[in-house]
């Protein structure tokens, strides 16, 4: 392996401005034309780099499901068993809110 990027990666199918703009929209990040000017080539460079994963034969390999083999623990059905993860925390929950009124969070009016 070289610590530089192989030229072969340039052959990778690249993403378009429109695709990057669509991804930004899906990620709810507003981008302008200037942002796209640098995001598009950076995106393509990174995608070209990760593309080499396609070389690996993984046909008989399971995707990793747990980093360290463990089973999921289940907790007992007890309200506020640990105060740190329990309810009854209206004040704490609202303490950092940009807009909080009458015990609610306020957001721009939503039309469903």
């Amino acid at each position, binding site marked *: 392996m070289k610590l530089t990027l192989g030229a072969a990666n340039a052959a990778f199918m690249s993403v378009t401005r429109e695709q990057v703009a669509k991804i930004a929209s899906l990620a709810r990040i507003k981008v302008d034309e200037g942002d796209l000017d640098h995001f598009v080539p950076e995106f393509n460079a990174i995608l070209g780099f990760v593309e080499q994963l396609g070389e690996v034969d993984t046909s008989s390999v399971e995707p990793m*499901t747990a980093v360290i083999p463990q*089973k999921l623990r289940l907790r*007992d*059905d007890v*309200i*506020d068993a640990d105060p740190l*993860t329990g309810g009854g925390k209206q004040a704490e*929950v609202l303490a950092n809110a940009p807009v909080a009124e009458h015990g609610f969070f306020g957001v721009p009016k939503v039309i469903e």
Partner: protein
Amino acid sequence: MLRRVSGGKMSNYRIEGATGTWEVVIGLEVHAQVTSNAKLFSGASTQFGAEPNSQVSLVDAAMPGMLPVPNRECIRQAVRTGMAIEAQINAWSRFDRKNYFYADLPQGYQISQLYHPLVGKGSLTIEADEKAGIPEDKVIGIERIHVEQDAGKLMHDQHPTMSYVDLNRTGVALMEIVSDPDMTSPAEAGAYIRKLRAILRYVGSCDGNMEEGSMRADVNVSVRKVGDTELGTRTETKNVNSVRFVMQAIEHEVQRQIDVLEDGGTIVQETRLFDPNTGTTRSMRSKEDAHDYRYFPDPDLLPLELEQEFLDECRASLPELPDAKRARYTGELGLTDYNARELTAEVETFARFETLLAETAKALGKPEAKVATPVANWSLSVAPGVIKALGDEGDMANATPERQAAILKMQDAGEISGGQAKEIFEIVLKTGREPDEIADTEGLKQVSDTGAIEEAIEKIMAANEDKVAEYRGGKDKLFGFFVGQTMKAMQGKANPAVVNQILKDKLG
């Protein structure tokens, strides 16, 4: 104009359009709130109707660094529900994140199960109902049940320019129960939801309270010409919260889709909203671009692996389910189909029936099967009739199983008539007095004393010698006349069986 015509046995819901006959394909995704004390991934309470944002933990509010830990009871209830629909239970399942942005979704993703749901394929049977256009029992496939988080609630009418967000519901456990597209009429969809609701309530995994939103359905509807094999494009109408509304939403969607198609248009696969005030659906603007949910396994949670012991307990704790109970009622207990169906429809109904049945069998010293029919008739028609007629005057707390059993016992012994039973029950409801005492004190007993009855019959025969002669001459029909006269003389309190017997003896 569209006109509904009846069709073959498989599906008799057909729409006659301008260009031909249409049929309907319906699938339902029912969201059922799991009965649990605490939320799926946090310790906050699930109770309904608290102050806004008071039943919210730091986890539910998706504060930075907060992590989910699953509630065993929620998993258990979903597994039991799966077992109740005879579904595949997946001992290995996983939680996935469904990513989208909305103000009622603090994490920016819902923890759900897409790739490996807890419960796989199962089914339930909806019963034949000729009147509703369901000609025979029908099995509806259930594709899966998975466990997921509920979202919070938005209020749009509290402020002129803002919507308010309440996260009390956020993180409450839901089961999403996904049917196959097996239903072909609004009636079948209604029957499916009612049956599913009954099963959930039998199992105790959901209270089935549709008004409070404990159960709500996403209704997938498409139409196609009869004979077409390809499914039409479907729409999904979200969060419909009553059986009636589900049926209305389907009817409206069917008509709308046919109208669009017959006008040369195409159906857009979209999310729609049902308006209960108008019975119509409309496109949901807020979900316009929510089609790419970028599901992936939640890295905060490990695979959910259930031990055999856990599964065994889930199965052992299952109650008798609606189909089995109905079969037992008609089989072992010898009830009519109608009675069995009525008694098993609701948890409260069968619970009351079974309690009274046990009490009555004990009081009479007879097996349950011997007393089931009178108890069923009492439970379904006699008692509700009296209760309804009394209205506010009666107090249900007075109608203990013991008292009702005592009434049924007197009736079984011939001590009181059906009419007297009702009168006694009425007094029980009003006063809480004991039936035996009422019967004695109020003279609500029928006479089985053969001496008194013989005396009355002899008087009647003496006064009607001509009719006695006619009867003895072969005019059998006159027997009824003598019964009537006797009952009249006894002021209706004579035991009919005793009257019959004595009359037969005397008339020869």
